[in-house]
């Protein structure tokens, strides 16, 4: 019997527009893009030129520091352009898909070399720092979370249907690199999850962010200074499985298309780098200012109709932007439709099943941290979240280390950022803290 860990701290926000369990197919056509910024902590070196022909699995760019870490094309076709921004920063490498999906084959025997050659290594992230993993490290374990507890997130049990063989093959391959820890939710009953082999299964029972791999690491095998843990998204394990079984790269994802402003929220079978407009065409409500998010409303990145599905995104969410809303005397009005953890609003009187339409407004001005215990109440780790945030703001590196910054990633602070009455951008603060620390320790 797998170990069960009950988590009390956290918060489930019930947002409107959950994806129904049906999948639409998108066509492989038009322009696809791989965005270096999706792979945090890496400096890209583009290895293709405009007009080059590429197959699925051919590198588009590599990491300057570790050229063996490749970032590969999800489609076959011709390189359309290398989009550059200020100071020639590579914003994206775009490929015109030919629709044939010809794929390169990889036959390396060593699992690590196979992942490096095929570009799937790029989907490993490492703790500390939450950046692309370094192939020279010896990780103490690989952690995979098979569920995402954030609102409107992808239901991995549904995505897994029909791909059980690839999933297991992926886990088995990862197990040859390091010990694999799989975290599953108490609600997940699929045999491919509860009976997964070549990994240690831990069951997590609790509200968001229980599905965050960082929370699971903290409870299973917390990271100490000097240790490295690799993590990989559950669907990316399926990519690895496909490679292990067929020798080919196939970056097909089943993303949840969700949110209150999507007409018929459901799943879409797409590729990494898929143009957003091919996923959302005709799906969004018009006449309102909208926010399209690559990912879920808690940890996603804002994009628009001209954007592309981010490398790690498992959902595309559309919510109202809210910049056209002028709400009067909000500090005293009852605001019955709003959701709040504070009992000064009335959402605590409504049933748990009540769904909320939240827009992207911050709903208050930024302040110093005033209330105590707000972060800790939704931070299910043995870490003083408020003190860690303060240490980061103060730039006190020794104290950040002592308080456990190596164990956290920005996403772990997502729920804390949601409930924060001081409206601080916690995820940005933590990201900057990790970046500075990484530079100092380099």
């Amino acid at each position, binding site marked *: 019997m797998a170990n069960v860990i009950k988590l009390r701290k956290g918060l489930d926000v019930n947002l409107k527009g959950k994806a129904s369990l049906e999948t639409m197919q998108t066509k492989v056509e038009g322009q696809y893009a791989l965005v270096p910024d999706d792979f945090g902590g890496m400096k890209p070196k583009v290895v293709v030129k405009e007009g080059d022909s590429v197959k699925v699995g051919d590198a588009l760019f590599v990491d300057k520091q570790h050229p063996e870490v490749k970032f590969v094309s999800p489609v076959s076709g011709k390189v359309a352009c290398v989009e550059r921004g200020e100071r020639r920063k590579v914003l994206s490498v775009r490929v015109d898909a030919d629709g044939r999906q010809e794929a390169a084959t990889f036959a390396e025997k060593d699992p690590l070399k196979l992942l490096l050659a095929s570009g799937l290594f790029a989907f490993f992230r490492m703790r500390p720092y939450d950046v692309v993993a370094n192939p020279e490290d010896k990780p103490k374990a690989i952690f995979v979370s098979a569920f995402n507890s954030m609102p409107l997130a992808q239901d991995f049990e549904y995505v897994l249907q029909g791909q059980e063989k690839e999933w297991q093959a992926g886990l088995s391959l990862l197990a040859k690199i390091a010990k694999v820890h799989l975290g599953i939710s108490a609600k997940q009953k699929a045999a491919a999850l509860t009976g997964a082999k070549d990994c240690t299964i831990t069951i997590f029972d609790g509200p968001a962010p229980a599905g965050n791999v960082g929370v699971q690491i903290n409870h299973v095998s917390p990271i100490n200074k000097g240790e490295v843990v690799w993590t990989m998204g559950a669907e990316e394990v399926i990519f690895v499985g496909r490679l292990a079984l067929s020798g080919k790269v196939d970056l097909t994802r089943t993303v949840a298309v969700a949110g209150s402003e999507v007409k018929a929220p459901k799943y879409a079978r797409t590729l990494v780098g898929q143009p957003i407009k091919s996923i959302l065409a005709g799906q969004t409500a018009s006449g309102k200012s909208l*926010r399209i998010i690559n990912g879920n*409303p808690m940890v996603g990145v804002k994009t628009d109709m001209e954007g592309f599905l981010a490398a790690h995104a498992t959902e595309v969410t559309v919510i109202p932007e809210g910049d056209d809303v002028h709400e009067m005397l909000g500090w005293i009005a009852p605001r019955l439709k709003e959701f709040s953890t504070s009992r000064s609003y009335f959402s605590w009187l409504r049933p748990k099943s009540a769904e909320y339409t939240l827009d992207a*407004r911050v709903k208050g001005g930024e302040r*110093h941290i005033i209330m105590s*215990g707000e972060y800790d109440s939704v931070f299910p780790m043995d870490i003083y979240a408020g003190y860690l945030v303060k240490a980061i703001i103060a730039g006190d590196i020794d104290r950040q280390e002592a*308080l456990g910054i190596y164990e956290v990633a920005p996403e772990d602070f997502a729920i804390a950022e*949601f409930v924060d*009455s001081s409206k601080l951008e916690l995820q*940005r603060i933590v990201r900057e803290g990790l970046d500075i620390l990484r530079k100092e320790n380099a």
Partner: protein
Amino acid sequence: MNSLRKFFDNIKPNFQEGGKLHAFRSLYDGFETFAFVPNTTAGRCGTHVHDAIDSKRIMSLVVIALVPALLFGMYNVGYQNALAAGQLDNATFWGMFGFGLLAVLPKIIVSYIVGLGIEFTVAQWKNEEIHEGFLVSGIIIPMIVPVNTPLWMLAIATAFAVIFAKEIFGGTGMNIFNVALITRAFLFFSYPSSMTGDDTVWVAQNAIWGLGYDVPDTFSAATPLGEIAAGATTLSTSFCDQVCGFIPGSIGETSVVAIAIGACLLLCTGVASWKTMLSVFVGGACTGWMYNALGLSPLDACQHIVLGGFCFGAVFMATDPVTSARTEGGKWIYGLLIGFVAVTVRVLNPGYPEGMMLAILLMNLFAPLIDYCFVSHNISKRAKRAINK
């Protein structure tokens, strides 16, 4: 609503960079965000949806929780005046309340004008938004002073507290000491005769605009704790009056019932920490019982809690999240020690018949130390884990 929005939109350019009223930008921002929820949206990365709670609402709730105690305080000012003049039978409810309103309102206005004036100036100077912290301090200040405190003293004390207890530390959220209590402490040590003096400060002595009664200059009324400090062994007021609040004292602190209404609101909405509040009462009651059993104090545990500013301090000032302990375990220790110190000061030092003010200020000072112990425990646990792996 639309016309108000249009009005704001019309005058906005004047306050923006280059506008002729740019110097009053923070004032405009203050009023705009007061009237409308700011519709700035979340950044590109990070959490895109947010809880509806913000510090404006939290501070407003505390102010609302203070209103019952304030209204009762106004009534009690009139009641004590009528009682002192021997006119209780002739006085009407509205007459007494009206007198109290006229006596207290100038203090509230002075406190807000001085405090908010400084806040606005500092916000403009530092190019920040106005922080709401003073909304609460500004109403607490007039409630914790005797009714006869001159307005100029109140103004000086408020200015001192806002500048030296808050702004030089960086504003709301960064202060070490509770601002309202620093105001009280400043008055207490700078103008002792006007704070306790010869017991002539607790009851308003002159009629205002035809309301209330003139009381002879020689009249004096001590607070129950003042009587005990002067050596009395029994009190001149009944326990029932003490609970309801019909006793001389600072304006807002006398009624346990009115404070309890505010406490319920704070606890139900989760604005104040129940751990801090409960532990202050537990600490005070245990210490009171101990001194009573040892024969050092004629008051029993229950009276220690009911009398003086104990309840007011426990509910509204010990729970100030900024200056209290921030770790959950620390809140228990912080609260217990406040209760202990408050009653100890009362019993063992006859020079300070109250004690809550000093207890909370002292523990404000120790709160970071208490938190330090809890956080250090977490840190050393992590360090040990690294060694023992």
